[in-house]
């Protein structure tokens, strides 16, 4: 088996995550889509590390995980705040910033 299969898997997961962001309205699910995209990237990074025999790729994936964790904290806090104010977790309801 070629290692590129991992890359195809990463691409598909990434595209699925992106589509989730575009299609779902529940902010939490949208957020999960973003997490999925980040994880797909991590998979690609780990695969690249293995291809090149360079462990730096894994370090990069590690950093992505840490930053993703921080992002999740802030993002979820924002969702909770919005939910508290508007009683809705739909991203379409927060659309006041328009013309």
């Amino acid at each position, binding site marked *: 088996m070629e290692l590129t299969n991992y890359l195809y898997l990463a691409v598909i997961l990434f*595209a699925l995550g*992106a589509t989730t962001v*575009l299609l779902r309205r529940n902010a*939490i699910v949208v957020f999960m889509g973003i997490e999925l995209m980040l994880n797909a990237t991590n998979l690609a990074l780990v695969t690249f590390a293995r291809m090149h025999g360079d*462990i730096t790729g894994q370090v990069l994936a590690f950093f992505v995980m840490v930053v993703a964790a921080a992002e999740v904290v802030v993002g979820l806090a924002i969702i909770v705040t919005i*939910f508290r104010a508007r009683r809705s977790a739909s991203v379409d309801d927060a659309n006041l910033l328009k013309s």
Partner: protein
Amino acid sequence: MTVSGGETVLFWVIAPLMVIAASGLLVVRRAVHAAVCVVFVMISLAVLYVAQEAPFLGAVQVVVYTGAVMMLFLFVLMLVGVDSADSLTETIRGQRWIGLLLGLGLAVVLCGVVASATFRQPVGLAEANAVTNPVALARVLMEHYVVAMEVVGILLVTAALAGLVLTHRRRLGAKPSQKALAEAKVAELPTGRTLTPLPAPGVYAQHNAMDAPALDPEGRPIEKSVSRVLRIRGQERSATELLTAEETLVRRELERPDDPVPSVGPASGTDGDGGGAR
């Protein structure tokens, strides 16, 4: 290096499952189900990491993503309402087709890039992992990325603070005293508020009958005795339904000649409540 047969099998077993689970994100109605799908994808990823000579990342993936991040998601889901379900009908015109087209297009383009790129012969991490994977990672991290790691640490602290600040709710009025609360309760009496705790549900304990309302002294069912969540979900059972079931049961017992007939206590009260309860 070559990919072992075991890994190939593992990949072809896990990868389709992962894609299916990820696709679940698009189609399931309930956010909780979506979260379960994501948890599955993440655990699978951890497995793939281990298979890809990154055992440390595999462990971190389980601990950080599955253990922390996804649990955080679930907490928030519970906070927001575990039962909140999206309708999957699209409200923005054309967004569904645009989204699907873009997602598909992205997948095609990226797959094309991967397909057209020429990769050299994979090296494998056997050499780099000679000192065990965590040690090798730590060496790179501590030799070349010390500053970055410190900065990321600061970022984490800042994010934690941000979480606190964002979810902090400012007290707008003075903290109500117990006396004021009691007075407010009494003042609300005319609007139907009760001073005493709500009656417990489940008088007719056919089963774990949290879904059956209690009856008041006149034999009428008390709506509020059933949990709000059950009521919203439509999972409560009406007293009439219960009484009918009860009477059928009793009648069946009565028709059996060798059994003594217990008197039906509340029957007289339920006569008039067929319409009143629901």
